[in-house]
């Protein structure tokens, strides 16, 4: 699979993204974030800090929330990735996306994809979180507009809608 010639070479790496199998040719130390955005055209994950502090590049890898800026793409081999683009079902918004809109949780939008994926990771493990648990679940996601109250409210609202649906 390696390119001929000396030194580091690109390799083929296959993984599922939002349910579709993708194969990319990449240097193994490329960041998953760059592969998603540049090679696969999925620009929902954003680069904020580039060092795992802000959560704006968060995606789900095998169901676990990860910062894609800290994942060398080789480690994504054979995994299943979900990005914000894969959360909704066709034209219908995901319950969290709708709640973010209704509660004013999406401001400038940079943090929203990571926030929503972090919230979805939380709700998958805890269907009825307290405000404190929501805050902890989102603690690694920074909102540069500082609109945290509406974001926490949006997650609580999504949890209510989900349990009453």
């Amino acid at each position, binding site marked *: 699979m390696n390119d001929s010639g000396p030194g580091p070479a690109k390799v083929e790496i296959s993984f599922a993204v939002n349910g579709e199998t993708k194969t990319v040719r*990449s240097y193994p130390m490329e960041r998953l974030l760059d592969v998603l955005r540049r090679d696969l055209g999925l620009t929902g994950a954003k680069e904020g800090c580039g060092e795992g502090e802000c959560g704006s590049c968060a995606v789900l890898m095998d169901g676990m929330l990860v910062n894609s800026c800290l994942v060398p793409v080789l*480690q994504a081999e054979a995994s299943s990735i979900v990005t914000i683009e894969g959360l909704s079902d066709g034209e219908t918004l995901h319950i969290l996306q709708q709640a973010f809109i209704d509660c004013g949780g999406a401001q400038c939008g940079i943090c929203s994809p990571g926030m929503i994926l972090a919230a979805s990771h*939380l709700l998958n493990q805890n269907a009825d979180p307290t405000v404190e648990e929501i805050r902890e679940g989102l603690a690694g996601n920074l909102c540069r507009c500082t609109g945290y109250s509406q974001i926490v409210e949006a997650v609580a609202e999504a949890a209510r809608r989900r349990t009453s649906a």
Partner: protein
Amino acid sequence: MRSNPSDYEMTALPSLHSTVSLLAREPGVWLPIAGGTDVMVQYAAGKLPARKLVSIWNLPELRRIDVTASEIQIGAGCTYTDLRRHAVVGHEFPLLRSAAGWTGGIANQNRGTIGGNIVNASPAADSLPALLVYEAELILISARGERRISYANFHTGYKKTLLAPDELIQTVCLPRRFLEYYSHTRKVGTRKAQAISKVAIAALGRITDGVIEDVRIAVGSVAPVPLRLKDTEQALNGRAVDATLLLLARRTVAAEIRPIDDIRSTVRYRAAVTGNLVVEFLNRLNLAQAGAERSEANDVLAQWNRLPADEAINAVLPCCGSRAWAEGMVARRPLADEAELLTASNETWRKVSPSDWMEAFRSHPRIGEKKPVMGSSAPGQSVEWSSQEQRDVTDADAAAKTALAEANREYERRFNRIFIVCATSKSAVEILEILRRRLKNGVETELHEAAEQQRQITELRLRKWLQG
């Protein structure tokens, strides 16, 4: 300056065996990378000297936790999330569970590993003081074989360790003999969470008849390595906790630590706070004895029994906003279980004065509103509980909400305080009915009816509080 990925070679091998073989062939050339929460940060900053990396993420041999009769064996590739979810870690090693829970946000807890934390060897690492006091041992593996060493000897200097270039940490072993110890941990950083520590402490202790039998104290961020305070421990063992001992503790701690000035803190601050943290631990250890003598079915209650009075008051204030009530509750400690707690609450509530009742009433928002009325500083937990209790009201339609707001105003004009009702699972319409009925009450009758409603609210909140 960002690194160029074409400068880096990386491989992932299927087993621990093949990985250590690679390390043996070219010792020191291949940098192991697990969840990347440290290595990728250096890479992003263009400061990663290694050019060849071998992934050990998700190697099955490193990602298992085995529990034997005498110890828990944690694979070095286990993440903080793995640790937080493990029942034995949670029950027998609370210091490690706490540290895992405050290491970064959830995404980093899902990727950061215990082995990575040890090898990265930061003196500020959150989980390392806990490993020191639990007397961890490490199993190191290489193609040459395995060796088992005491973790206490692992860090030899700032970012220097005993790990050979061809070696990996395979397992972190913790002996299961600390269940009976009182444990205490605290991290002091710039913020409450998501900040690297300025000073951190992890400590265990046993005390009998006021005399310290055995203490173990480790601190982070105050020396080139995570530091066990052996001299201080020795000075404390066998002594009674009193003012003289606390002074002695401060002196030995100051002599033992080696803090520096850096971007996060200063020598002076770190020295003072380390002393404070050790004294806080000893005070709590001493208080813990009173609580420990009774069987305590509930963790929240057990911890609360041991808190200093002012902290204990603040802890129960969200359940009922009367300070006199909270002080009365704290005076009745230790409380053994839920039944004792609720009895104490009901009796205390009956004894406090109507002006104390009023203080509790003021800590609530109006029915249909979120924030308490002016002049009250209700704790965040109280505000959150109010909104849960009023969930069914919040969902009401606009007409019902308007009617409720009007009736609220009428009530406030008549009784000169906000309307108190135990709103849990009552709809807006039901509450409106109750409100209209109570508007017809005499002043004295209504005061007692409101107090009874507050008693019910307090009871529900105390139950929630016990659930942690």
